[in-house]
């Protein structure tokens, strides 16, 4: 009987992959549970000898087995979504069983770690610097420089911390990697440990990822002999978005409130328990096995655009027809991603806005879709690529409501340590409400004669807009971390491009938002 390959990724399972697998097994087929190819609109995707069918339900199984199913997509590797990708970090996606050491070794697993041991820590750090790899968590700091700082800082104890607190909406690459290729992450951490002289590593995974936690906890004991004496432990988050911020994550690992720490000192100098610590995102660490392979650094550094080197696993999400994981070299335009690869909206309606980089990323207007996927290009456009998530919205979206949600989210998830974020986000929601209500007049207690200092005149809509822009400026420059500092990106970009959704005349809001951006 032919072998049927079906993903056991959380997304495939949420779409019904377990029932499909059970039906194949019931009919006598040999079922292999593999990682996901990342073509999410086709999940559950069934593969038999390279040919694919999707999205499959248990009712389609009989037709697939007798060759009459009309959900065939022909050869998966040749599918237009797959054919143009450059999969380095996700090279094994769809091809291997996540917890099979044999599959891992057969696809080049452990080779980079062996080579790293042979060439020594200093050369490893040099190669990571040469690859040009920048931290994939969002800040884009050169990974090799961070490693060199930790390596050069004396310390009896050093740590490798993997930031797997992937809280941004529209991102799922960390989850897919941990579930689909956990040994690659473990190998990357072991390489990091070797490079900086760390003895212990932690993977901080969010509690919302039960499948990833289960896979990692199964994979670590299997891989332990290969990475010894380095040890890795999984720690599970407790529902705080802010713990994706590296210093907050370190506090959480130490058993404290996940409050942000002021920098300096950098975690590379005084991180976990005050020891020199590498804090890297899942994708940064998982890129290491490719970079440290023979000639890998040169190949990786040869790809990309301007100062953004290598590939980025881009996540196509939200209202998009062909959502999923698309790994490609930097430089691809948003138009290609959304309209070309992504096939436009799932609803079939026109695209209104695209949010790149999660809840703290700017909303980009279709007029800006020629922007190249590159850290500096996005920064220049008052936007960020963050963790590479792209969330598409159709023309029914109320962008004023999305701006309000950005402030509301910041208020809900603020750690409370700094005032601009803690208070500013709450005030931001109120100001946006007043703009959308067309301004406000004094009411209630404010009008009482004994309230000598209260404002007796109303505030016009234009004055409220100025207030919001002032508030955003305070948050941008006064917040301790990216949560308060970047929340103005979605708010101001929505105000700039869609003033009509705030109840403003199309031109007025645009002019004012542009002034703010010029500061």
């Amino acid at each position, binding site marked *: 009987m032919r072998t049927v390959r079906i993903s056991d990724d959380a997304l495939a399972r*949420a*779409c019904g992959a377990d029932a499909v697998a059970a039906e194949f097994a019931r009919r006598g087929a040999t079922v292999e549970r593999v990682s996901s190819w990342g073509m999410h609109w086709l999940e559950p995707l069934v593969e038999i000898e390279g040919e694919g069918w999707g999205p499959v339900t248990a009712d389609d199984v009989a037709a697939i087995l007798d060759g009459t199913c009309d959900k065939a997509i022909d050869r998966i590797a040749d599918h237009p979504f797959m054919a143009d990708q450059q999969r380095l970090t996700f090279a094994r996606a769809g091809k291997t069983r996540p917890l099979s050491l044999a599959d891992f070794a057969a696809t080049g697993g452990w080779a980079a770690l062996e080579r790293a041991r042979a060439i020594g820590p200093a050369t490893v750090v040099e190669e990571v610097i040469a690859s040009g790899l920048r931290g994939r968590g969002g800040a884009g700091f050169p990974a090799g420089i961070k490693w060199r700082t930790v390596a050069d800082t004396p310390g009896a104890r050093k740590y490798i911390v993997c930031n797997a607190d992937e809280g941004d*909406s529209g991102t799922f690459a960390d989850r897919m990697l941990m579930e689909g290729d956990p040994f690659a992450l473990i190998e990357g951490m072991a390489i990091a440990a070797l490079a900086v002289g760390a003895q212990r590593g932690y993977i901080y995974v969010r509690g919302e990822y039960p499948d990833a936690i289960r896979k990692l906890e199964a994979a670590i004991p299997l891989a332990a002999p290969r990475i010894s004496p380095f040890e890795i432990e999984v720690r599970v988050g*407790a*529902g705080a978005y802010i713990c994706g911020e590296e210093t907050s994550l370190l506090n959480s690992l130490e058993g404290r*409130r996940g409050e942000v720490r002021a920098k300096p000192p950098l975690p590379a100098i005084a991180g976990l328990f005050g020891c020199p610590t590498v804090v890297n995102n899942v994708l940064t660490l998982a890129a290491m096995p490719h970079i440290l392979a023979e000639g890998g650094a040169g190949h990786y550094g040869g790809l990309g655009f301007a100062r953004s080197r290598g590939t980025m696993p881009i996540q196509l999400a939200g209202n998009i027809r062909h959502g999923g994981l698309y790994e490609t070299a930097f430089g691809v335009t948003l138009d290609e991603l959304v309209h070309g690869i992504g096939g436009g909206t799932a609803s079939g309606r026109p695209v209104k806005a695209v*949010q790149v980089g999660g809840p703290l990323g700017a909303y980009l207007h279709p007029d800006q879709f020629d922007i190249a996927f590159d850290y500096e290009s996005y920064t220049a456009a008052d936007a960020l690529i963050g963790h590479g998530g792209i969330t598409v919205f159709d023309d029914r979206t109320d962008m004023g409501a999305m701006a309000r949600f950005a402030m509301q989210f910041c208020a809900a998830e603020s750690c409370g340590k700094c005032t601009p974020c803690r208070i500013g986000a709450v005030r931001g929601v109120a100001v946006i409400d007043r703009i959308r209500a067309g301004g406000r007049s004094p009411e209630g207690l404010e009008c009482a004669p004994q309230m000598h200092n209260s404002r007796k005149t109303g505030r016009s809509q234009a004055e409220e807009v100025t207030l919001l822009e002032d508030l955003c400026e305070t948050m941008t420059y006064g917040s301790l971390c990216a949560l308060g500092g970047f929340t103005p990106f979605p708010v101001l970009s929505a105000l700039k491009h869609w003033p009509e959704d705030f109840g403003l005349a199309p031109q007025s809001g645009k002019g004012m938002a542009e002034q703010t951006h010029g500061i």
Partner: protein
Amino acid sequence: MAGADLDDILARHLGREGALLPILRDVQVAFGCVSPASEAAIALALNLSRAEVHGVVGFYHDFAAERDPRPEVQICRAEACQARGVEALISGAQAAAGERVLLRTVYCLGLCSVGPSARVGDALHARLDAEGLRRLIEAA
């Protein structure tokens, strides 16, 4: 009975680096809450003040002070699920849940290309429409 369980959890984690969060997590899973009595016992075991433990418990969304015996359905209402129409499902979900089921908003289950999505226990559900979500809540 409950006391013995708490002792087991403490014994399992004492001596680990940064043991407080793993302990709180296990306590939350075992008892459905981190009660003031548990806080006191944990503080004693870790040589922390009760205030320190209480501060940590209060910080994280996943820890509750009191147990809610109702079945829980978590619905993702973050941007990607909003783009896929989750907000239109909320009133129907609340009607289906009534007082019997606890609906909890979460921000992102990592199924952003196939939302709206929900989680019951460790089981994830995607591509929900009004009918699918209603059935999920009624079966919870």
